[in-house]
């Protein structure tokens, strides 16, 4: 079990709603961005002298730009429906981690400066001045929201705390209080092209290595091309796919699927990142700037289609926002949606009988599937609502013999976030990440006990990284989390594949 400087919650059989215990997480704050990470994004380097006035001004600006913010700050009736829905509340017991508790940190300031009732009777309606203490609370608790939207499912008005967290982060950035993790990463995308800061040559090198590995394993020359002009498909995938387990196994899987489909494809070193952290900090400008790189790469490489790899918040930006931010896509092949998810691509091939699988290759595993929050509640796959739940499951069923879902209350649109989304996947928030993972790990633990589940598949780079790190705190193994396309990769029988290869596989793995 991993060492912890805090108390790791005990898992229970059912979700237990904890009693309100104020301020348990008031100390949790991510590192503040230094000026060098603020300025490339167009934000002031450090907290300004007249920050209060500036912040109120910014709030006014955002209220005029975002209907969501305006309506959500007005509409809440404090009914309490959301209070037991956030994984961070369930894991930390801190009432400011109840969605409404988190919203109220901004709502009380909104009421004080923007509503008649709050100007006249602040005490009566819970309105408060924007003091330094309130700002500290903002910094702490708006970085304890993974923008997973679970609260918005249960709110009678659809109030989405993610919208409020994003606005809060945007306001804080505008007065010079940014979060190091997100802002440093966005800077890397501008400078190098991806979140991890992997330069083009390193990517090319990695991909060459993958080609050799796959050849050694299967005897088939599957290609992993980068910057190839004129390819049909541009693959945009999270940069974690280039180097870390279990992500890279997914990338190997995408390549095998493209190979079997017989289409040419390429990655781009310029747009070598699917994730768009501009969303996490609520910055339309930065989100747009990151998204524009994909457009530029698509034009430069003269591709006809864009496909996204496994990444949750990325798929939200891709599916829901890419057309808005970087469209119109009239120069691409109109027969395909822009963009497509790799799962849509693979599923379509399965439907058309183009892929052959040997499901027994995954017989060493009993699987369950984690619906990544932003795929589940902020996007879609396929033509019908809910395709984002059915398509990945159909792929698992096509490639694995043993699959069981977790408790219904914890999957599909009621899924729990992994605890690391929305710009919180950083070591300075480890306590929050471990505690926030509790509801998901609980549900996983239950199917492990009841159905002998051994592995959980996911289609999000953040989920995969988060579980790799967090599962050991709960006494589980880090490799219990797998990429969905890793399962595809294991089971797919490539045309011309050396079928005697099974034994070789074993030795390879042992080596």
């Amino acid at each position: 079990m991993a060492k912890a400087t805090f108390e790791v919650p005990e898992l229970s059989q059912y979700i237990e709603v904890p009693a309100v215990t104020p301020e348990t997480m008031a100390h949790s704050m991510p590192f503040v961005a230094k000026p060098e990470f603020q300025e490339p994004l167009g934000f002031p380097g450090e907290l300004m002298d007249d920050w209060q006035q500036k912040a109120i001004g910014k709030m006014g600006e955002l209220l005029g730009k975002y209907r969501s913010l305006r309506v959500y700050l007005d509409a809440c009736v404090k009914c309490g429906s959301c209070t037991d829905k956030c994984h961070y509340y369930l894991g930390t017991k801190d009432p400011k981690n109840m969605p409404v508790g988190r919203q109220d940190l901004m709502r009380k300031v909104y009421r004080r400066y923007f509503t008649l009732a709050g100007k006249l009777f602040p005490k009566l309606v819970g309105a408060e001045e924007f003091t330094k203490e309130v700002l500290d609370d903002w910094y702490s608790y708006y970085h304890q929201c993974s923008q997973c939207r679970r609260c918005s499912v249960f709110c009678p008005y659809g109030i989405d705390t993610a919208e409020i967290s994003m606005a809060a982060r945007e306001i804080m950035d505008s007065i010079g209080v940014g979060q190091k993790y997100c802002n440093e990463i966005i800077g890397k995308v501008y400078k190098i092209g991806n979140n991890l800061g992997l330069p083009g040559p390193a990517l090319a090198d990695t991909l060459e290595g993958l080609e050799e590995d796959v050849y050694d394993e299967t005897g088939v020359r599957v290609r992993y091309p980068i910057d190839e002009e004129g390819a049909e498909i541009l693959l945009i995938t999270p940069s974690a796919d280039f180097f870390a387990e279990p992500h890279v196994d997914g990338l190997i899987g995408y390549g095998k699927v493209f190979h079997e489909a017989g289409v040419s494809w390429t990655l781009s070193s310029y747009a070598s990142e699917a994730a768009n952290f501009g969303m996490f900090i609520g910055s339309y400008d930065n989100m747009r700037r990151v998204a524009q790189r994909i457009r530029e790469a698509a034009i430069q490489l003269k591709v006809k289609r864009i496909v996204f790899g496994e990444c949750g918040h990325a798929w939200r930006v891709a599916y829901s926002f890419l057309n808005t931010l970087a469209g119109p896509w009239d120069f691409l092949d109109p027969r395909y949606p822009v963009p497509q998810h790799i799962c849509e691509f693979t599923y379509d091939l399965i439907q058309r009988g183009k892929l052959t699988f040997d499901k027994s290759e995954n017989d060493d595993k009993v699987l369950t599937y984690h619906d990544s929050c932003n795929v589940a509640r902020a996007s879609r796959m396929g033509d019908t609502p809910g395709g984002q739940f059915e398509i990945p499951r159909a792929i698992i069923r096509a490639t694995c013999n043993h699959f069981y879902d977790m408790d219904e209350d914890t999957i599909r649109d009621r899924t729990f976030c992994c605890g690391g989304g929305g710009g919180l996947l950083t070591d300075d928030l480890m306590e929050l990440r471990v505690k926030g993972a509790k509801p998901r790990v609980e549900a996983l633990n239950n199917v492990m006990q009841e159905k002998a589940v051994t592995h959980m598949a996911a289609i999000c780079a953040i989920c995969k990284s988060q579980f790799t790190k967090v599962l050991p705190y709960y006494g589980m193994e880090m490799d219990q989390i797998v990429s969905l396309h890793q399962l595809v990769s294991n089971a797919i029988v490539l045309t011309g594949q050396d079928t005697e290869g099974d034994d070789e596989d074993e030795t390879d793995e042992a080596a």
Partner: protein
Amino acid sequence: MSFLTMVYAYLYYFAALVLVVGLVYKVVQYARTPAPLKIPTTPAPTTRTGVVFRMTREVVLFESLFRGNKWTWIFGWIFHFGLFLVTLRHLRYFIEPVWLPIKLVQPFGVYGGMAMVVGLVGLWSRRFFVDRVRYISSPSDHLILVLLIAIGCSGLLMRFVFHTDVVAVKSFFLGLYAFDPRPLPSDPILLLHLLLVAILMIVFPYSKLLHAPGLFFSPSRNQVDNPREQRHVAPWAKRLEQE
């Protein structure tokens, strides 16, 4: 015309003005504020018709609240449905001749009044007994429930205990239309009931009662899930493209 009638006449002109102007202002403000990104909570309908169905389920059945919390849903729905029936019943004081459906709904309106109070008491008790709800309640959240309960109880008292001259009440309100107020009966319970209703009307556009118009403007509920098919760009975002 008595002083009392005058006071109530002006009170109701004022309350009606605040309610209408305040609500129109908020609705216009919501409508004019752009929603720059597609953010429906998915799975979401892919057509306009589908959105109308989703919204209808939210407005009539409180679908999301049902999924969220059964107790709040039961009390909340009983209250709102009761209030709806009560409002229909009360229409008879404001229209002449009274439409047939309003005549038919009269007996149900009484049950509605009772249901309304029961629902409100249930909702209020949650503010004391559920620690999470207690934590998020501010004084105004309690007061608005007190106000509504007082309106309901004073109304029921008039129906069952201290009857008032409803014909005179009706003629008072019809008189207001023509700026010619007729005498209002001076029963204390009626005056209290009317005072509280006027307060409710005045408070409406400045409080969380804005959840009523707000729901219709909630992007997570009212947007069509079709971002890949239709490009959606807000006017202020369009300006970025021209730079």
